[in-house]
């Protein structure tokens, strides 16, 4: 049984999700101790329990210690089975984080799957559904899988109630890829989505994006949802290149002005464009796992987050893999994954 220290690195739910994903794929039992030890409320919270439960049911595994507040978990995986799954996440928790836990397993399963997830679809501190649809899944599909994600209903914190449906056709064998050059931007788009809040908020956000990036009208969009999905507000900015689309998201929340929501997002976009790399922060830590499973790959990105280095550690302890990170003087980083 492989032992993981849950308090290392990022020290939160990321270690748990990456460990579970790799445990399922490799068939290795693992024990995680000191789960979220440094957090104000240590141990497994409800959304983590849902991830554990999702992992357990996808591979018919056994979980010991899967209780609220538990800081220890033993996970003994069984064979991964595709099929129809449905998971509901409480506290408007992120549907995408639960998906992140089981998707690597499902794309390597023997049969296709359909997964329905309810909860939050656009959560702060989690990849949004748009990020998955535009940035992450196309790359996964390029590796040989076929994953189609449909957003059936938006879900924002605190109301939740969002729903996504994911159809997964597994790959016989995942193919590695290189993502090291950044061809010219093919298309760019900013969307301010609003639900159950005054439309003026979205207008002000779009104005702020226009001012910050000097983009023409055809790149700027407002998307007003019905009140029943609200309240909620996100600003999503997409930068599309021939080989990859990057997505940046700002989250509207109480106490933060519409302009601030927009400019924190445009600041990221500007740093990304200035760095002239194909992959940015969140995509960089998400790509590591599928590439490691595929047997290798390379990508060029900006400064790595704590999530990325934590992922690298977990990957190295559960897979016979090496994650090499080479930084240059301008802050760019070439990530090379070797098996």
């Amino acid at each position, binding site marked *: 049984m492989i032992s993981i220290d849950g308090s290392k690195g990022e020290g939160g739910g990321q270690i748990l999700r990456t460990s579970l994903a790799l445990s399922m794929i490799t068939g290795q039992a693992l024990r995680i101790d000191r789960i979220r030890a440094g957090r104000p*409320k240590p141990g497994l*919270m*409800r*959304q983590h*329990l849902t991830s554990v439960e999702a992992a357990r049911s996808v591979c018919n595994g056994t979980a*010991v*210690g899967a*209780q*609220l*507040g*538990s800081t220890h978990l033993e996970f003994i995986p069984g064979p991964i089975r595709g099929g129809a799954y449905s998971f*509901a*996440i*409480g*506290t*408007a*928790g992120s549907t995408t984080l639960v998906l992140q836990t089981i998707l690597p397993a499902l794309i390597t399963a023997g049969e296709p799957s359909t997964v329905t997830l*309810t*909860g939050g679809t656009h959560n702060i501190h989690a990849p949004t559904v748009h990020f998955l649809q535009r940035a992450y899944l196309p790359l996964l599909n390029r590796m040989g899988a076929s994953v189609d994600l449909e957003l059936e209903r938006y*879900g924002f*914190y*605190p*109301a*939740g*109630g969002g729903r996504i449906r994911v159809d997964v056709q597994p790959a016989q064998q995942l193919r590695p890829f290189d993502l090291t050059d950044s061809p010219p931007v093919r298309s760019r788009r900013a969307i301010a989505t609003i*639900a*159950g*809040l005054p439309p003026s908020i979205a207008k002000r956000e779009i104005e702020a994006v226009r001012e910050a990036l000097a983009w023409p009208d055809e790149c700027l969009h407002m998307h007003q949802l019905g*009140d*029943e999905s*609200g*309240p909620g507000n996100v600003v999503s900015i997409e930068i599309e290149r021939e080989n990859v689309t990057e997505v940046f998201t700002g989250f509207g*929340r*109480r*106490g933060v002005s519409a302009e601030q929501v927009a400019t924190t997002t445009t600041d990221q976009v500007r740093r990304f464009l200035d760095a002239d790399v194909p992959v940015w922060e969140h995509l960089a830590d998400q790509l590591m796992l599928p590439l490691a499973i595929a047997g290798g790959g390379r990508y060029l990105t900006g400064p790595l987050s704590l999530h990325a280095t934590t992922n690298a550690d977990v990957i190295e302890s559960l897979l016979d893999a090496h994650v090499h990170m080479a930084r240059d003087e301008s802050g760019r980083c070439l990530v090379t994954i070797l098996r």
Partner: protein
Amino acid sequence: MKPPTLRPIVVLGMLGTTLDSGKGARRWKRWRPTVSLCQHEDLLVGRLDLLHARRSTRLAETVIEDIADVSPETKVVPHIVEMDDPWDFEEVYGVLHEFAAGYPFETEREDYLVHITTGTHVAQICNFLLTEARYFPGRLIQTSPPRSTGDGAGTFSIIDLDLSRYGRLAARFEREHTDAVASLKGGIETRNAPFNRLIERIEYVAARTTDPLLLTGPTGAGKSRLAGRIYRLRRHRRMVKGELVEVNCATLRGDGAMSALFGHRKGAFTGAASDRAGLLRSADGGMLFLDEIGELGLDEQAMLLRAIEEKRFLPLGADAEVQSDFQLIAGTNRDLGACVQRGEFREDLLSRINLWTFELPALRDRPEDIEPNLEYELERFAVDRGQRVRFSSEARQQFLRFATGGDARWLGNFRDLGAAVTRMATLAPGGRISAEVVAEEVQRLARSWDHGGDQDAIELAGVVGPQRLKEIDLFDRAQLATVIRVCRESRTMAEAGRRLFAASRARRTSVNDSDRIRKYLARFDLSWDEAGRPE
């Protein structure tokens, strides 16, 4: 090792018609306590039993739908409860009590939390009381809004009313309990396990009931002392305000008994020159210790029963009842059940006072407690007489060997032990009880038990002879024994007189106490030489 499976949490709560309300998307900007219960990352509510009035059904439906979104793991079960006036304590308590009574609690399988943040303040109080009384067999949960701005779920805290679960509080209660038990033992470090268990039980009951207590056990087992200590404990805890009124029912036989207990009006009978409150009235707000309750006449028993049950009774010659609310402690060394059989004691009164019965063991059944009680009696002697007396170690061993052995019958129990210590301490040369003193006392005790424990009879038999003793009325024996005891302790008749008539001396112009003693002794054919100090 598999950790124990946690019981799912079940919350019982009332819909907050104000706090839980809200329409449209804006409702999510408000903190709604019932919804917030299900929004916490670290609290998983398996089921929420939501109490609401029929007129709030629409609001309840919204809350239930919202909980389904934020907490798909939670099953919400609505319960319609109607209250005409949610601020009326009696009604709210009644409705909630009824709900609790009809609720299928399964504490083995489910962990119950009572949500007290919603509902009127009256409802909160009722929920608190019902939880404390274990009608709701769970803990309280209180929810609070987020402290700063933000749409967060706020905070919650779970309050266990079982105070023993709080370390510091538990230590405090333990200390109070230990102190209370120690005070019931009169500070004596008793070692007899059944006796100590009995005292623990009495401490527990005395702190919780105002029902009558019945202390049984042989004469001298300490009923009267214990009654006094129970009273002081309750008074210390502010559970009783009034006085402790003590009376031995054996002294109440005859015509005066009614009047002494229940009082009378002026002119109620010949000799009733003024109003008399009576003992029951004096005990109002306090405690009444009726020792030897088996000696009470049947008429008095009937009156007493009514006084206990109704807290009112009719004094002699009065045309209106008076009230008195007291806690009764009854003492007896008789088998009251047998008394009921013989028609000497009312069955209904016995069943009323028989609720909390504590049988005090005889001293001979507590041999390990003789030593600590010996210390206690020596201490008492020192305090009373201002003279500290000790045993020589040989004498001490000798006395304890006898006292805890099979020959020591201790018919008068602590009364015998107290008297023995008093005698030995008084006779101790130079404040030291010698082996000789002990030997003498052991003989005296053994003799007294041969006579069935009547100390007066033993002493008098030694002075007047067994034949003459038979001619002396029981009525006179006690007084005569006291007089002879004083005479023997006095060097001269004058000294004896000074002590015997100390109270009345001051009021008299001429004093001839020696003459009074001489005349008194003469009635029993005794002279000073015979009664006084043997040379």
